């Protein structure tokens, strides 16, 4: 009996021990669960910001692929996700509104036009790890300000360009025309006249895009982006209606003449073409564009022809030109800090920049031994899944690859070109049209009706220009002009002389 007792006791104790252990572990498990849930609740879900990328003519086929890569890049670098939404530039506002309806808030957008929708960036500047001065000078930042507020950061893209035209090199050579001799509208007129006689089947010229007029890149009137009135680039800095200027008149008159002479493609509004696309067919002699270092090479690739560029005006830095590659954060963004970080990446990360500019290495381009890039075997501008040519819309294009054939010193040349460009006095000024919003919109509607026709030579300027101006008068142009003048003078006074 004694033996039996000895045997039982250890077992009983063991059982009690086990019970205790079980209780303890259960207790521990519960604690851990609670902690983890608390932690998981407290821990943030990964942030996702929405970025709208604007393309000029069409959304490339491989956009989704690029977006996925960019998202992966951002996740790796910054531990937040980025959802990219593509839009056409002309369609951007509509797209944003549509997404808003779906409940998607865009955090970062390219080409911010309406600063009412933009976030003031001054408080977020400290997020930039690098000193901003390494990227942009004080002066540049000041110029980027709009009425003192900083909505975008200065860009280093090749936004400075001069209104010009590209010609087919072979035709020029055939007729022994020296592009140096072409500098004015008159020169162009003579040229077209001569050529059209010898080449009756050749279309003389076309705009950069048929859905815009010939004067798309005509930057004389770009001082005020959101108003038909502008600050004349003279010493007096008077406020003028850009449609009333002599330059404008001389241009549209000539354009009308040319259209009548049959120098243009037929029924321009129905064409839906880029000048380079028409050039590719061999039917076109020239088209208008914005000239800058490297433009010839760019247009050569787009059009498949060898072209010669002729600037028709000197390069200038204007408010709108500076805005071309301006990226900003939307006011109603939920994640301003992450958005700022994304902007920083767009400015400083060559991987991200090249991804959006050129696509994925070895899929859309290949790296050549000399550091430039080119299409992979069998690919060209037409059949590539990603050849958007939106380098101009990215703030720091200088970090991107240079395409093969292009000048390797392109960025240096660009910098010189930009530095030598004349700077408007009105840089940094933004017109707030809230007071005269109704009139301003009315003016724009009137302009929309007539401007395209005038700038494509479809409307007789002698008839329709006065008609347009008349309507504008009636719509309250004077008020808008007065308001602009007021604002500009006020702004001018705040500026250092």
């Amino acid at each position, binding site marked *: 009996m004694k033996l039996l007792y000895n045997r039982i006791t250890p077992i009983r104790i063991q059982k009690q021990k086990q019970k205790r252990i079980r209780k303890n572990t259960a207790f521990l498990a519960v604690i851990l669960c609670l902690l983890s849930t608390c932690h998981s609740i407290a821990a943030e879900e990964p942030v996702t910001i929405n970025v709208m990328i604007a393309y000029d003519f*069409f959304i490339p086929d491989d956009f989704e692929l690029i977006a996925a890569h960019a998202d992966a890049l951002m996740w790796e670098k910054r531990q937040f996700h980025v959802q990219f939404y593509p839009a056409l530039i002309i369609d951007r506002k509509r797209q944003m509104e549509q997404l808003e309806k779906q409940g998607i808030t865009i955090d970062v957008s390219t080409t911010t036009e309406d600063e009412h929708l933009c976030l003031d960036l001054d408080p977020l500047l400290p997020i930039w790890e690098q000193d901003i001065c390494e990227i942009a000078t004080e002066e540049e930042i000041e110029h980027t300000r709009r009425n003192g507020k900083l909505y975008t950061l200065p860009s280093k893209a090749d936004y400075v360009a001069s209104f010009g035209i590209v010609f087919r090199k072979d035709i020029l050579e055939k007729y022994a025309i020296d592009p140096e001799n072409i500098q004015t509208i008159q020169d162009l007129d003579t040229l077209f006249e001569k050529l059209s006689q010898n080449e009756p089947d050749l279309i003389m010229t076309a705009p950069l895009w048929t859905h815009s007029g010939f004067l798309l890149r005509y930057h004389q009137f770009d001082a005020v982006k959101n108003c038909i009135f502008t600050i004349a680039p003279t010493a007096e800095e008077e406020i003028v209606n850009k449609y009333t200027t002599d330059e404008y008149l001389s241009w549209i008159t000539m354009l009308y003449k040319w259209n009548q002479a049959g120098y243009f493609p037929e029924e321009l*509004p*129905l064409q*839906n*073409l880029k000048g380079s696309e028409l050039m*590719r067919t061999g039917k076109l002699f020239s088209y208008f564009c914005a000239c800058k270092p490297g433009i010839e090479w760019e247009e050569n690739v787009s059009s498949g022809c060898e072209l010669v560029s002729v600037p028709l005006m000197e390069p200038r830095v204007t408010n709108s030109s500076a805005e071309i590659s301006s990226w900003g954060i939307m006011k109603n963004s939920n994640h301003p800090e992450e958005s700022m970080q994304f902007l920083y990446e767009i400015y400083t990360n060559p991987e991200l920049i090249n991804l959006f500019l050129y696509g994925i290495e070895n899929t859309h381009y290949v790296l050549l031994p000399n550091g430039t890039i080119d299409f992979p075997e069998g690919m060209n501008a037409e059949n590539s899944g990603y050849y958007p040519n939106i380098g101009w819309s990215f703030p720091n294009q200088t970090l991107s690859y240079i395409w093969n054939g292009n000048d390797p010193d392109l960025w240096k040349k660009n910098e010189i070109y930009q530095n030598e460009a004349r700077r408007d006095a009105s840089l940094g000024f933004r017109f707030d049209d809230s007071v005269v919003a109704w009139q301003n919109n009315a003016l724009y509607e009137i302009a929309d009706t007539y401007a395209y026709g005038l700038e494509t030579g479809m409307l007789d300027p002698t008839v329709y220009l006065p008609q347009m101006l008349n309507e504008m008068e009636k719509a309250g142009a004077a008020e808008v002009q007065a308001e602009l003048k007021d604002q500009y003078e006020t702004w001018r006074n705040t500026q250092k002389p």
Partner: protein
Amino acid sequence: MTVFHSIYSKLVFWALLFTVPIIGLLTAGILIAMNSFEQQLTLSHQQLLLPYASEIEVTLENIHSYVANRTVPTQFLSKIESGSELEQLQAMQDLNAYYSEDIYTYSQIDGIFVLHNEKFRFIRNRDRDYSKQCQAAQYIQDFLCSLTAEENPFRQGYQAFMLDGDPYLMLTQRSGNTLWGCWIHTQQLLSAIRNQEIDGLTSLFLEDENNIWKYETSGTSSPLIIRQSFYKNAFFLTAVLDRSELFSVFHQLRLVLFFLIAFAILLFFLYLSVLVTLLIRPLQVLVTQMNRIKSGDFSEYTIAENTALELREVYTAMNAMTREIDHLKIGIYEQKLLEQEAKLQLLQLQVKPHFILNGLNTIMGFAQSHDFEMTQKMTFFLSRHFRYLLYQEHMVSLAEELEHIKNYLEIHHMKHQTVFSYIINVPEELYETEIPILSLQTFVENSLKYARTSEIKITITGQLIKKQETDFLMLQVTDNGVGFSEELLSQLPHPEKGLLSRKNAGIGMYNVNQRLTILYHGRARLHVANQKQGGAQITILLPFSENT
């Protein structure tokens, strides 16, 4: 064929007979399975294109109904022709917006064309190649111009045409005087499929029932062509797959199969070698050992360390058996020797009792006649004679035998008072040669008995001769008697038969003959003949070696 009878070859044969069919069946089974899988894969691939084809069909049907129902904006068209510049501009913009929206909706459309009042216009899809669109538009324009008035191509539905290797579909609708429609670049329809990245796909294209679209197919080595018809069998979605790429897994499988079979064969040979080691070799060992015993080698077999239990038992029993045989053999030999010894002794002791009795009688006679000298002499010689007879050894020296013969002759002389003489012609060097006891005396005795002449003359000679490369000691006993009878001589080739039939006269010779056989193992010879000059001649040839 003797090779075929060995156990090893039998084993190999039967093993092959069992394993080859099994491996063969397995291989066949796997190959059949692979074949059927290939067929199934092909079949499933046939079905591969069905969803895509139906998708394209839906697209085509949508566009068809669009063209069927969409009204032509004649108001814009007429305004473009007759209106103020501004009206024209606005009409153009409106027309563009009108059809651009449609193109946006039906993104597969490459372009929409309108022929109104002999003016051909087209609105293009901005995402596509302009040059190709111009080409297609030109073709369509030519086609429209070729139509008669009131002809409505819409009834024929989609029309296929090909330009420079690009396949197109065209759909034309008549609305009063206006002909309008759209065209589709069919390769665009396939972009969704191409993005799927189907394995082994080398080319993908659409075919139409009238074979207007012709393509150059790059020759793949083994093309698998899948054709899926759609749109009321007017079109076919054709995919050309590279069979080898598609079924590359089978190639790999075949390789695996080959290796498996090779491995199986290897295993088979391994099995055989193991079998040999475990069974065949021990068998061979046993066979060898038996053969050795047969040839008289009774050495034991050393058992290796790691022999199997059963084999160990067999080997141990075999060794015991070998030992037993060895012992028995020795036993038998020894017994045989003992028998021979006894026989020999018995033969040797074939003493003629009557000679003793006669001798004793003679002694008694002499004693009765009080001839004490003769009695003494006779007793002395007789005792010498008997002593020699009871001499236990089988072999004596020639000298001793001759001495005994002399003694015997003296006794005979004393007994019978006959006249005889003898000559012994034996060189002295042969005196020490060993000869069987009583071998010569027997014949001397015979001569005395059967010579039958008044003056018997006995000659005993001994010499060494060489016969057939062997040295023999030749001992001859001759007399000048009547010799042997012809009858006796004719029977002598079989002395035991012949001589036994003669009582007394044959026994002595038989005895000597037997003892010679036993002692010299048949190498000694006994010749019985008559001399030329008359008289018997007994010749004994004993093998002579230096140490006898």
